């Protein structure tokens, strides 16, 4: 038993931390938050050069081929920013979809580019009837000769504005689960419009298809009906990495509150001397540690080849709630200062809400946890 990171992981952690500090300080993040993509070509290039955009992609496809835990170390540090941008969507969820579902040709065409940052994958699953169950995929792709024709809307798609290719879950058959196919849709394509959604959600978009033609070769893996299986397999591995991002976020918010508890003086003493302020922070730390260790155990199970589904659902349910609650606690500690945009806390508050439902909300994962336990 050894619950520490390896030396290589510690090294990676330090270099990501350095990168975030240098390239994504608060001022940059405050500016990026307002952009449609959440990133810049320079940032993409630098992260590609560091090998991080291909961290999960096997070396055979131009990636670094590292473990899930390694990728989690990277994303935990990014979460501290919190660094926005399509990195998780493209290099984790998107790359895993291609790895699990793509043909050899598609892997060779897409993955090296993803690792280089020249291709950015988006993943369009959810629709107006929002949900992460197969029944919620209703956008139909009609086969017409050597292409498909699509009309409809994908909604609340993360990072679609940054994507060069959208992996779209579409319906090619009536079977709730077996009727779903993943299509690789290039951006731009005639009839396809991607639009940022206004509000308190960051890089979340509407993707509208109006008589969009997609070649039949765009079917991920070349065979219809495998979409949901591929999505589930990829999500099982991607979720703990998203969880790690939130763990990093929670840690950053806790650190912010700790620092403020020491420097903010009211009633003649640092506010952290008041038990009420302490209790906000203690509750935050408890959420953080619950998120951290459920996430780490899920990663360990994935990397060691153990059945991981129950741990993954557990981690997702716990971390999504933890991030929201940790931000709430930080707002209690910071009061007025915390809601001033330039302070930076609200970057987290927003992401804690915007990531709450991504890949399934806590309630969904609680129910799936019961199923995974064989109950």
């Amino acid at each position, binding site marked *: 038993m050894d619950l520490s990171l390896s030396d290589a992981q510690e090294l990676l952690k330090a270099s990501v931390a350095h990168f975030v500090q240098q390239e994504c300080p608060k001022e940059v993040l405050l500016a990026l938050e307002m952009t449609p993509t959440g990133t810049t070509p320079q940032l993409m290039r630098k992260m590609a050069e560091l090998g991080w955009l291909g961290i999960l992609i096997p070396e055979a496809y131009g990636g670094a081929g590292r473990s899930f835990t390694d990728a989690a170390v990277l994303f935990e540090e990014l979460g501290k920013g919190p660094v926005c941008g399509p990195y998780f969507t493209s290099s984790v969820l998107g790359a895993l979809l291609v790895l699990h579902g793509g043909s050899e040709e598609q892997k060779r065409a897409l993955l090296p580019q993803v690792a280089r940052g020249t291709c950015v994958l988006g993943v369009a699953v959810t629709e107006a009837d929002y949900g992460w169950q197969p029944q919620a995929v209703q956008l139909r792709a009609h086969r017409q000769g050597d292409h498909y024709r699509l009309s409809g809307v994908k909604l609340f798609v993360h990072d679609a504005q940054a994507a060069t290719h959208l992996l779209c879950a579409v319906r090619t058959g009536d079977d709730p689960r077996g009727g779903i196919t993943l299509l690789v849709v290039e951006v731009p394509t005639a009839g396809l419009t991607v639009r940022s959604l206004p509000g308190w*959600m960051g890089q979340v978009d509407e993707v509208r298809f109006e008589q969009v033609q997609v070649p039949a070769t765009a079917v991920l893996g070349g065979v219809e009906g495998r979409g949901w299986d591929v999505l589930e397999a990829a999500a099982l591995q991607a979720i703990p990495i998203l969880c790690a991002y939130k763990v990093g976020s929670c840690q950053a918010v806790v650190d912010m509150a700790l620092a403020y508890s020491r420097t903010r003086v009211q009633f003649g003493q640092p*506010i952290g001397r008041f038990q009420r302020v302490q209790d906000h922070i203690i509750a935050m730390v408890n959420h953080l540690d619950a998120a951290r260790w459920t996430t780490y155990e899920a990663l360990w199970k994935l990397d060691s080849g153990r059945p991981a589904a129950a741990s993954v659902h557990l981690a997702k349910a716990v971390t999504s709630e933890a991030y929201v609650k940790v931000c709430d606690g930080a707002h209690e500690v910071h009061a007025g200062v915390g809601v001033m945009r330039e302070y930076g806390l609200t970057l987290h*508050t927003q992401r804690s809400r915007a990531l709450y439902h991504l890949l399934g909300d806590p309630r969904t994962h609680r129910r799936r946890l019961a199923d995974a336990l064989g109950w």
Partner: protein
Amino acid sequence: MDFEVTYTPEQEAFRAEVRAWLAANVPPDLEEPVDPAHLSYEQYGKRRELGRKLGAKGWLYPTYPPEYGGGGLSVDFALILEEELDRYGLHLPPYYDSGGRLGAASILVWGSEEQKRYFLPPMLTGQWRTWQLLSEPGAGSDLAAVQTRAVRDGDHYVINGQKIFIGSLHGCEMMWTLVVTDPEAPRHHNLSWFMIPADLPGIEVRPMELLTAGGEGGASPGLKHTVFFDNVRVPAFHLIGGENNGWKVATTHLELEHGGGGLIRRHRVAERFLEYCLTTKRHGVPLSQDPDVRDDMVEVYIKKEIVRLLGLRTYWLSHANRPRSYEGPQLSYCRKVTNLEIAEIILRALGPYTLTTDPAWAPLAGLLEHFQRAAVVGLHPGGTTDIQKVVMARRLGIGRTVREEAGRLR
């Protein structure tokens, strides 16, 4: 016990009068933007105008003494007024004027007769809108630690300092604030309370960039500002309650800030959320028939009902002039915490729809998105949740044999 006004014939007649008057005087094109920061100047003007008309009848401050511009009405009549205004989604005053509500009460308790006759009528009849200026960068929860200074100079005071989280959209006519007049005196004995015309030279107002310009969802003040005082000369007559007596004056408006006046306003967001779930169909079935959504709705309903009842109880205590203790800060605490809880239940129930203002997709025209932010921002104004608990503990006498008294409201 009686949880409603039991209508006497006189009261029934009053209700009819109010209803008719409102039908004739509430502008039909009154709009309430989802985000109070979007209230247009024109719309604001209509609200001010309605306020002046109400004020002329004594209905803007119905329970205040008529000699100062109030209505001299009892709590039951005031409640009828609030109920009838509520049918229009309005309340008293029909625009953001916490400075007026809190300041008028303070002047009524602590001002000299001359000051009451000078300051109260324009406030109570809607001529003035008033901002309250309390927080400073170094004085948030610890309000008594304010640093803004006032120095006597002949028959004026000269004020210098900075106040934050101030005001609302479209300015004000008057401001009141708490300043240091004796830096040598002990805590709570060094402060004075001033009414300050907003147009005096040396006052500068700058907007702040916050998570939301609004407040607590449906009761929100709009934009907040930083206010700078640079050698602002205020006539000594504008000092209320006497020099170095400012903390005592503050206990009155703090009592109101801490919820001591009660709350009879409906929880608009909760109600509209419930209505939305009842009327919005998914796969041909109302959302309210989804067992999870239904449980969430019940949770929201219970939470808002508890706050409603605590608000009603406190309103009654205050307006019936009954002894009050911890009830104000309890209401304030529960309201703040409940709002955040309700926001998160709604987030859970309706998913990312709750986070967008997109005209095509946002439910209730973005009201829920605004509430997501407003519930977070609402944790601190008028005293953080922790401060409400500080006051509650003192009033309940936890660990103390002598219980702190509630602030005077009259």
